[in-house]
């Protein structure tokens, strides 16, 4: 049999159905929206992260330093006797020195794949049209282990780069802007003045605008010729079995070799911090909804207490304690919270289902293959939303419940008689 305060509480709630239903619905809406909104937000965020992890390198070593190197005069006169101002970067031959050695070292690390590259800009021209693009020189065999570019190639293949002299794979947006297609021959002119003819052997569509609209791939050697920088490598891109190791590895590389080394987290820091703000907004909005629901519970329990003062006097005259009375009304609040949390899970499911039905006609071609919301199916919003609802209900009920318990039965009866 149910404990006595629980059975009294449930009886109070079940005999005043309308009021109970309204307060349960209030809580359920709060919980439901929380579940729905977090599925939406987290879905987008995890999709974005997965996309970044999938397409972009986990770690990139660049041919630059994070902080300018100390001037020799400053190093010689440690302690500040000399200050050097207005230093311009030296016209040095840029590129990662000893890149081959680093590659060899990296490839010995477990769970690490690395690929060299020389990235530079070039003006691509096809007929009368020209577009500035980033030309990435790659080694297909190594690139394959580092990037997923291959699966995004919609015409041709990575191997065609090697099979064709001066083959080039261009982003789909780039191809459109040039008006060129696979098999066409285009010209590329580097800032150095060197110019080469390329044959388009492939078209790539990653879904990431910056790549699709502005990148092209050639063999590393070809890139070095185009840029007139023989044997130079200016980026090493690394892919890890465990993406969580990206930041630590980046720090290790930078400490050991000195080159600026960015993990994917660092490269996307602005977006990731945007997510933090996004989540904060989400939690505030939903917290506000639940707060309103909690006030609803507070007002309902207060009203019930007010209407039930005679019952409280009777229960006390029958030997029920203050603790019993408090339990009765606290349980009423918690019961509303629990029912609201359960119904809220259903409402949340419904919201997620409804969101899943939404289809966008054309999302600007940005999210390829996804014409709807990306929804995260996670357990924690159900648990967190439910727990918060129950907690808020308990607190909201506790205040009037304590007041109810402290009521003096004789004063109630004198007032009533």
């Amino acid at each position, binding site marked *: 049999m149910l404990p*006595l305060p629980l059975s009294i509480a449930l009886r109070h709630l079940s005999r005043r159905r309308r009021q109970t239903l309204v307060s349960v619905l209030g809580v359920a809406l709060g919980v439901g929206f929380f579940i729905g909104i977090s599925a939406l937000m987290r879905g987008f965020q995890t999709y974005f992260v997965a996309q970044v992890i999938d397409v972009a390198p986990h770690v990139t070593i660049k041919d630059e330093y994070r902080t300018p190197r100390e001037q020799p005069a400053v190093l010689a006169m440690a302690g500040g006797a000399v200050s050097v101002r207005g230093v311009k970067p030296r016209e040095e031959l840029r590129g990662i020195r000893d890149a081959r050695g680093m590659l060899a070292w990296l490839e010995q690390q477990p769970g690490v794949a690395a690929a060299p590259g020389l990235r530079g800009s070039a003006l691509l021209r096809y007929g009368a049209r020209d577009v500035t693009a980033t030309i990435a020189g790659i080694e297909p065999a190594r690139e394959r282990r580092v990037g997923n570019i291959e699966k995004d190639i919609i015409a041709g293949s990575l191997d065609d780069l090697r099979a064709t002299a001066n083959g080039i794979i261009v982003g789909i947006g780039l191809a459109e802007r040039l008006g060129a297609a696979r098999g066409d021959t285009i010209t590329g002119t580097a800032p150095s003045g060197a110019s080469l003819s390329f044959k388009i052997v492939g078209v790539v569509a990653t879904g990431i605008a910056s790549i699709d609209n502005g990148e092209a791939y050639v063999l590393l050697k070809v890139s070095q010729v185009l840029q007139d920088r023989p044997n130079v490598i200016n980026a090493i891109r690394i892919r890890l079995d465990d993406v969580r190791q990206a930041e630590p590895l980046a720090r290790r590389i930078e400490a050991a070799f000195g080159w600026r080394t960015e993990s994917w987290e660092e490269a996307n820091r602005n977006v990731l911090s945007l997510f933090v703000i996004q989540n904060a907004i989400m939690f505030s909005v939903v917290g506000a909804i639940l707060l309103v629901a909690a006030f609803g519970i507070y007002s309902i329990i207060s009203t019930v207490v007010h209407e039930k003062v005679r*019952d409280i006097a009777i229960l006390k005259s029958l*030997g029920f304690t203050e603790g019993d009375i408090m339990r009765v009304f606290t349980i009423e609040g918690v019961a509303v919270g629990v029912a609201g949390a359960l119904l809220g899970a259903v409402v949340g499911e419904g919201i997620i289902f409804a969101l899943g039905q939404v289809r966008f006609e054309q999302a600007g071609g940005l999210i390829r293959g996804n014409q709807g919301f990306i929804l995260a199916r996670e357990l924690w919003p159900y648990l967190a939303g439910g727990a918060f609802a129950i907690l808020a209900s308990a607190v909201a009920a506790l205040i009037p419940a304590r007041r109810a318990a402290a009521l003096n039965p004789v004063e109630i*009866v004198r007032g009533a*008689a």
Partner: protein
Amino acid sequence: MTPLLEARGVTRTLPGAVPVTLVRDITLAIGEGEFVAVTGPSGSGKSSLLYLLGLLDRPTEGRVLIEGQDTAGLSAGALARLRRERLGFVFQFHFLLPEFTALENLLLPMRRAGLEAEAALRARAEWLLERFGLADAMRKYPEQLSGGMRQRVAVARALANDPALVLADEPTGNLDSVNAAGMFDLFESLVSEHGRSIVVVTHDPHLAVRAGRQVRLVDGRIVEDTGAVPA
């Protein structure tokens, strides 16, 4: 012998700009097996006295003792326990719990005290309601009962835990003379057969004389007590 319940010089004053004294200097001892009728004009403090004796209110002066023990020092929890195991209280205005059936109204204090198994409690509650002629009303909610029936349920509920002392505030106010007499029959049998004590407030002089002892209040003072032990 120690009386079951004793009031010694009890005064109860409501604080306020104009303090109101409800009862004044009450000294009263109720022994085991005593049947006491409290009478007096309206506003004379009968209900107030009953609240004090029922441990629902505390005196501003004087002491209330139960079985020789001063109740002033008892915790709220201890008082609640005395109320549910030793005392049965009936408010002047029936006061049933509206969300519960007549039977459940009896079962609530029984379950709270938990002195017997559920089946025994249920059997006793049904037996009590039958004794009050409420066999057909057991599963009805208070709103479905007449005023007189509710009053009888309230008295039955006061007897639910078989208390040593029953305090009933005008329990016959809504009853016809037959039912009122029947209730007093029951009180008499509780006293004579079971040795229980009853304090009952009544306006009806014909009923009052059926009690073994009459206490008359006027303006919060005892003006007559047929059973007072001479000091």
